[in-house]
């Protein structure tokens, strides 16, 4: 039996402008790719799926989290992954980087903030290799290596507006467009050391660009700075994949799910809070549009705690811990997969306004988890680093 672990040689990762780059998992080969959660380092540390955290945030999937950003703000999140693929005794280790999200906000009134975010939606970067042998006339055995490379992914740019209706209640909405492109290349190279002549590689490739619309609405409620509850609905229009550069075939259209996210945070003590969140989406419609494989509904949930009592050189040093579990939408090798694992994180509040609004901060989160699909098990370390600069 051919070992799947060896089939997938995951190469160096490349950041794309859209952020939907840097695949590092066998799972990226399933369906439309590996979903990229629009969650920053603080959210990662708390096991969050992206909404309902205390404070302010500027992430693609949360249109209302920026409502209290009273000064212009820029955020950026970077991610690194170290992954070990294992199947039986075969193992392969890879690492790579992502650029999951970039956000800009600008307060347009005392209660309203405009946001612009750009982030990855699906990661489609992966490589599959398969050694094989051929028998041609006159050549007993001709070794070949088949290599299938997918590069690129789906990203989304969103323009949003968040408005605080009252001290306890805020709403937000964002509209966006799918962007990005992917390229797929199959090559068969011949090991001509065993024959007298060179045999040129066979190549077959395709390239597609993505488009589509996105609408997200959300709301949050605060109860005396003790409890925050938030939720969002995201409606994805059909994801269109248009062939480019002479690629054969017609434009493909993928039905996309309605996605629901909800989260709640509660203050347990003056400097201690807890967060709980979940996300749900039904990808079965997308699965019906796939030529191969299928998809189903996914549930992601997580919880965490944050302690804000620590300081470093007089600066706030919040410490975080959490746990999260996510189901992945697309089947790979005929099986569905999920990932889960604990998270740890720390923040550093470099500068803040008198009212406590962060003007410069950085957050770091580390996750250790695993996921299995068919005979392959992946163990990963994922680090997420977020920066925020505001008030300029």
């Amino acid at each position, binding site marked *: 039996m051919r070992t799947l672990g060896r089939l997938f040689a995951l190469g160096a990762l490349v950041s794309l402008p859209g952020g939907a780059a840097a695949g590092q998992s066998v799972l990226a080969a399933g369906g439309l790719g590996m979903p990229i959660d629009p969650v920053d380092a603080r959210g990662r540390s708390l096991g969050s799926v992206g909404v309902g955290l205390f404070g302010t945030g500027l992430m693609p999937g949360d249109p209302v989290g920026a409502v209290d950003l009273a000064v212009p703000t820029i955020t950026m999140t970077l991610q690194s992954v170290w992954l070990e693929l294992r199947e039986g005794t075969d193992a392969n280790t890879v690492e790579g980087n992502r650029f999951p999200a970039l956000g800009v906000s600008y307060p347009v009134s005392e209660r309203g903030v405009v946001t612009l975010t750009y982030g990855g939606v699906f990661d489609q970067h992966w490589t599959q290799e398969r050694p094989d042998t*051929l028998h*041609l006339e006159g050549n007993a055995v001709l070794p070949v290596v088949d290599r299938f490379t997918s590069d690129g992914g789906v990203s989304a740019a969103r323009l949003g507006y968040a408005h605080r209706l009252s001290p306890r209640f805020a709403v937000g909405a964002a509209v966006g467009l799918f962007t990005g492109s992917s390229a797929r290349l199959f090559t068969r190279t011949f090991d001509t050391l065993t024959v007298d002549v060179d045999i040129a590689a*066979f190549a*077959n490739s395709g390239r597609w660009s993505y488009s589509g619309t996105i609408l997200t609405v959300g709301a949050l409620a605060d109860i005396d700075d003790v409890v925050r509850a938030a939720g969002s609905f995201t409606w994805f229009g059909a994801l269109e994949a248009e062939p480019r550069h002479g690629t054969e075939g017609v434009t493909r259209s993928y039905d996309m799910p309605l996605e629901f996210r909800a989260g709640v945070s509660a203050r347990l003590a003056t400097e201690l809070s807890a967060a709980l969140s979940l996300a749900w989406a039904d990808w079965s419609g997308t699965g019906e549009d796939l030529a191969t494989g299928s998809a189903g509904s996914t549930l992601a949930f997580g919880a965490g705690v944050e302690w804000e009592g620590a300081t470093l050189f007089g600066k706030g040093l919040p410490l975080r811990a959490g746990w999260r579990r996510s189901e992945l939408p697309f089947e790979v090798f005929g099986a569905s997969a999920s990932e889960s694992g604990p998270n740890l994180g720390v923040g550093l509040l470099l500068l803040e306004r008198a009212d406590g609004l962060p003007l410069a901060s950085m957050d770091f989160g580390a996750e250790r988890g695993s996921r299995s699909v068919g005979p392959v098990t992946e163990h990963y370390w994922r680090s997420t680093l977020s920066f925020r600069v505001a008030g300029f």
Partner: protein
Amino acid sequence: MVTTPITIVDPLTFEVRLPWSEFASNLRIVGGYGKPAQTGTALLAHEFDNGLQARMLLRPGAYPTSVEVTDSLGNREEDHNISIISGSLWVTVDTTGVHHLGATDVRLDRLLEPWDARTATWALASESGGVQVPWSEPGGGAVERLRRLSWLPQGRDEILIGIDSVDVALLGDETVSERGLMVSIDNPGKLLHVPRVRMEVHVVPSINEDSTLVVPVDVTDLTYVYTPLAPPPSDIHLRAGGAPAWRSLFTFALPPSLPATGQVCVRTTCPVALTSARVNHASILLTTRPTDQAAFAPVDTMGVEVRGVLAPELLPKSPVTGPLFVDSLGLPSGTAVPAEAFRPGASRVVEVPITPIVRSLLAGASFRGFRPTPTVALMQLREPTSFGFASFVGPGQAGEPVLRLVLTISDPIGLP
């Protein structure tokens, strides 16, 4: 079976071999490319095989005008007052190609008629601008006998021919256009291949007159004249190489589709459309055959290649494309065929790759800046480099040229 992206593409590589009549036509064997002087080698023969006569002509370069010597005090000095008292000619013989062992009578003559190494032939002393100047008698014209010696090949691959002071002086006069030496052999049935010739003069300096110094002199002109020329192929076969060189010219007529059976036809429509993208490898399989005349049999490995003919309407003067393949040094790379393959009973099939030509013909695109032409030439690498030429079985005979194609088909690349 587990479905993976590669299994969805499902590539299939297979091989097809086409007989000559299904891929080529209009075979022509054309000779006359290059001159023996370009080989940098020489040939000596006397009534060999079919009566082959071959003589080596050479002309030395400028003699030294000074030498560096050590005086009685041990100091190194440049001495411009020197005397050239004699010379030596060293003729290296390829002993692996020596036919008929035994003593060979070697003759050294001084040429007495003006000659041009680049254009000299058995009949002509020179040819320039359409003006042909024949030798007064074929084979080098009138000569003055200088030396005659007997050479035995055992244990030695160099023939040493001494030149006395008078003859050395005459040879050194660069104002004389008939300046030159001719080396020949007198034994009927002999053939010697000469890969290298070198000359040296013996110099007595004015400082330290007791010593004689041996100073090498460049052989600036080296060629050979021979008769008769190799006749055109007596039957239909391919020929490449020689000096002047032969080329086998033919025209590709690639079919739009290829016959296939079995698994290939399960995967795609048969016959299979022949496209550039599907061709991984294309080559011509040639079967070697003994050279018609032993005199023209290769004595060393022959490199052969195929190049595109850029202007078939100008043949035989048409330029050809650059080499299809080059080695790590950027030099043309072809198929090496050992000399043994052209001996009776030693025929073998050799493969000459032509993938770029077939791909460009199928794509209709330019190749190395030129539009592809279906006319190609089978020729020797870096022609002319050898007197002997390669012979291959021609169309319509057992072992005729075959086009070998390795192709890969796959399903289109798509999104999941």
